[in-house]
């Protein structure tokens, strides 16, 4: 492949410009609008005071350190678990993979508040499991709160991301390479470390980057179980949304710091993955093998064990949805009352939960496919910029983006009335798409890195135009990657809250908003029922997808 550094006005040039303009309009303009106040005060003009304040006071700067600690630890654990599981899935034949796959995906979606809250009910100081263990076994479980709790929840919530990515990447490894190693006496963990892992590296890095950033920017979990272990995103959130009068200029400065950190890590990841860029022409993708004996036992124990643990809070949630409740308090006895209430209150939210992510996912897939191709095969300043830009919404707290969108599009762009989309479906669709694009982009980029350019050349030699080659050859070959990312985008859009809670109107209320509303109103039973409905809904959408795509394997 020729690597043309100039920007040319061919199909790719145009696509690049369209995407860039979109990002300027829906990212730089609104977010810049909010963040500019971090450098600007009405009294003094340009100022760095907000930044000085942050770095000079340990009360604030410690949160950054804390965030790094939890994010790095969680990333490492998520990486280990996710990779281990993906490896088992790719290498061995065992029963119930389809079910496990769905459960893994379910584990990655967490209903607002209620999801992490289940952990407290299970593992808290008076949690079901904690009490069980201490009463019957006399075992003292470690505290779910603070550092260890945050890491636990992050790990179990984020490993599915690594799993899905790597599961897709295995499809691009040629079986014979693994066999070559095996023939030379290298098997098991050794082969994994010396051959499999290096080959998966682009994907591993992409996945880990996302996990890290997600852990670094998530505030829901640390807010619920941090108990004084103050993380950076919680700080940003509370400064923006403070009930006691936060300082939004200071909050903007924090967001700027978050973005700078995210971009630096992104660049670092880019540099590192260049070292692992090699393409493969996998005509014989890795196939699974039967296992026997002790090995079989361990395969089952590990895979089912991990997955079961990860969905435990969701299962508990389902359980509580059948419990009788009185407001905030769960009573003894079981009934369908919560469901009765839930259905009566859902309104059109189920429809919205389908409709809004549906439009958004179309945008996501389209953009991701183009952006990843531009970033990998047509790398130049513009495309590299687009690539980096696309990561920003991932790290900008959803609340900030919500506020930015409200402020910037309330009266149209620059108050002109152009794109005055507040309150419409469009604003939700766009915000969903922009925020969840990175999942699909990163996995597509990783997939593309592994595809041998000679396949594209072959298509071109057959007279296929760039566009045609792209859609008929490149995209289908990237499919495992695209789908892995799209599923994550889809799941996270379905359970998106922090932006939609600011942008929704009665007509665009989603199930997640409904759940949150019930939590606020103190109806935990109804919230649990709604969460269960959302979960069922998600499973159905996955099953439908499998049916339509004709694959058992969600990552294709």
């Amino acid at each position: 492949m020729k690597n043309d550094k100039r920007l040319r006005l061919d199909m790719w040039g145009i696509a690049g410009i369209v995407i860039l303009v979109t990002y300027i309009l829906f990212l730089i303009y609104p977010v810049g609008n909010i963040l500019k106040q971090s450098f600007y005060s009405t009294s003094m003009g340009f100022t760095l005071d907000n930044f000085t304040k942050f770095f000079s006071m340990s009360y604030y700067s410690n949160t950054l350190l804390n965030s790094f600690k939890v994010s790095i630890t969680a990333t490492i654990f998520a990486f280990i678990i996710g990779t281990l599981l993906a490896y088992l899935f790719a290498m061995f034949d065992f029963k119930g993979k389809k079910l496990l796959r769905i459960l893994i995906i379910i584990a990655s979606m967490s209903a607002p508040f209620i999801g992490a809250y289940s952990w407290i009910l299970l593992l808290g100081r008076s949690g079901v499991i904690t009490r069980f263990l201490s009463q019957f076994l006399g075992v003292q479980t470690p505290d779910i709160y603070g550092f260890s709790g945050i890491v636990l929840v992050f790990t179990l919530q984020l490993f599915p991301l690594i799993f899905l990515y790597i599961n897709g990447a295995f499809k691009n490894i040629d079986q014979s390479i693994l066999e070559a190693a095996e023939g030379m006496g290298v098997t098991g963990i050794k082969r994994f470390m010396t051959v499999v892992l290096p080959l998966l590296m682009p994907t591993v890095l992409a996945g880990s980057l996302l996990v890290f950033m997600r852990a670094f920017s998530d505030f829901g979990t640390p807010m619920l179980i941090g108990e004084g272990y103050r993380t950076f995103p919680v700080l940003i959130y509370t400064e923006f949304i403070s009930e006691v009068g936060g300082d939004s200029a200071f909050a903007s400065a924090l967001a700027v710091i978050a973005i700078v950190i995210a971009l630096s890590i992104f660049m670092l990841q880019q540099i590192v993955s260049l070292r692992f860029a090699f393409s493969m022409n996998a005509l014989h993708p890795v196939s699974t093998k039967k296992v026997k004996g002790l090995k079989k036992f361990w395969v089952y124990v590990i895979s089912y064990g991990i997955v079961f643990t990860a969905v435990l809070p969701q299962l508990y949630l389902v359980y509580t949805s059948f419990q009788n409740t009185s407001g905030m308090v769960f009573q003894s006895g079981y009934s369908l009352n919560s469901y009765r209430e839930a259905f009566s209150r859902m309104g059109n939210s189920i429809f919205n939960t389908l409709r809004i992510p549906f439009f958004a996912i179309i945008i996501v897939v389209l953009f991701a496919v183009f952006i990843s191709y531009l970033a990998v095969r047509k790398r130049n300043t513009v495309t590299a910029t687009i690539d980096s830009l696309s990561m920003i919404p991932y790290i900008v707290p959803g609340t900030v983006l919500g506020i930015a969108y409200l402020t910037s599009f309330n009266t149209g762009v620059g108050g002109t009335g152009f794109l005055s989309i507040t309150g419409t479906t469009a604003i939700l669709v766009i915000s969903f798409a922009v925020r969840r694009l990175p999942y699909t982009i990163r996995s597509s980029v990783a997939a593309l890195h592994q595809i041998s350019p000679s396949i594209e050349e072959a298509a071109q030699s057959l007279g296929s135009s760039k566009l045609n080659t792209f859609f008929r050859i490149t995209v289908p070959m990237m499919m495992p990657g695209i789908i892995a990312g799209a599923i994550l985008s889809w799941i996270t859009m379905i359970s998106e809250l922090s932006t939609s809670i600011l942008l929704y109107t009665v007509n665009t209320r989603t199930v997640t908003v409904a759940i949150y509303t019930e939590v606020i109103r103190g109806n935990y039973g109804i919230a649990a029922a709604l969460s269960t409905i959302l979960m069922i809904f998600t499973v159905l959408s996955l099953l439908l997808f499998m049916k339509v795509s004709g694959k058992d394997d969600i990552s294709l």
Partner: protein
Amino acid sequence: QDNGSSPDRLVIYSPNSEGLINSTIPAFEEKYGIQVDLIQAGTGELFAKLDSEKDSPVADIVFGGGYTQYSMHIDLFEEYVSPENDNVIAAYQNTTGFYTPYTLDGSVLITNPDILGDIEVNSYEDLLNPELKGKISSGDPSNSSSAFAQLTNMLKAKGGYESEEAWAYVEALYTNIDGKISSSSSNVYRAVADGEMAVGLSYEDPVAKLIEDGGNVEIVYPEEGVVFLPASAAIIKGASNQEYAEKFIDFIISQEIQNVLSTTTTNRPVREDVETNDVMKPFAEINALEEDMDFVSENRQDFVNRYNDIFVKTQSN
């Protein structure tokens, strides 16, 4: 596209709980034949939303939130004083012209008798008991309004906002809390109700509601005194349904609704000419204190800073 401009609709932003919503909105809809579009979220989120939308507002009414938020965002509201205003207890009347208090909420302690065992908790002072170390749940006064209300309440009760003695108490208390800060108000009472914590620095409405729902908790009105603060509602500046909005304000402080509130919910009415709920201790039996709202509003940031310093100090040793 619906931004509330249709004539028979009223857009309400509210962080309120089930009881308040259920006893007001349906009744209002029925009475006036107006459909209410209710947007619910946390107080912080709603005010951030209002602030962002101020050039082209969507909401007509914001229904809920304490005076601190209102006083910070005066520019968002339309001036309106309800004719019913005069029937409200003098201390809780709409004096600014912008926001109308409709219920009262006191800072209380929530306790879980199972966890507490035989430890006595009747006052703020009791919280300094070393046996409670790490078992007290508190919000973060620098961003949770209920935790901030607790802060001003204990300052007032312990000697005044600028009393060193009072601040010394705060420091002692937070040393005993040992960094176990919840990031949101709701976590505080939930933690106690779930048995995760023994005591929580919370507020009256949810605690009473928990007791009413059968939760295993008790409510403690600190002996040193309880400050009751009003929850308010206001009309948004530039609201498209001004007329209905005004009707709504009148409605929530009408005797009829105040009566419903005080009898069927765990909210204290702002009118005296109504009955009260059995779950809640009658006003007369409580050592009520009064907050100096103007002073607190003005010095809010100082309080927060001072608290932050204390927090850092307790964390660093």
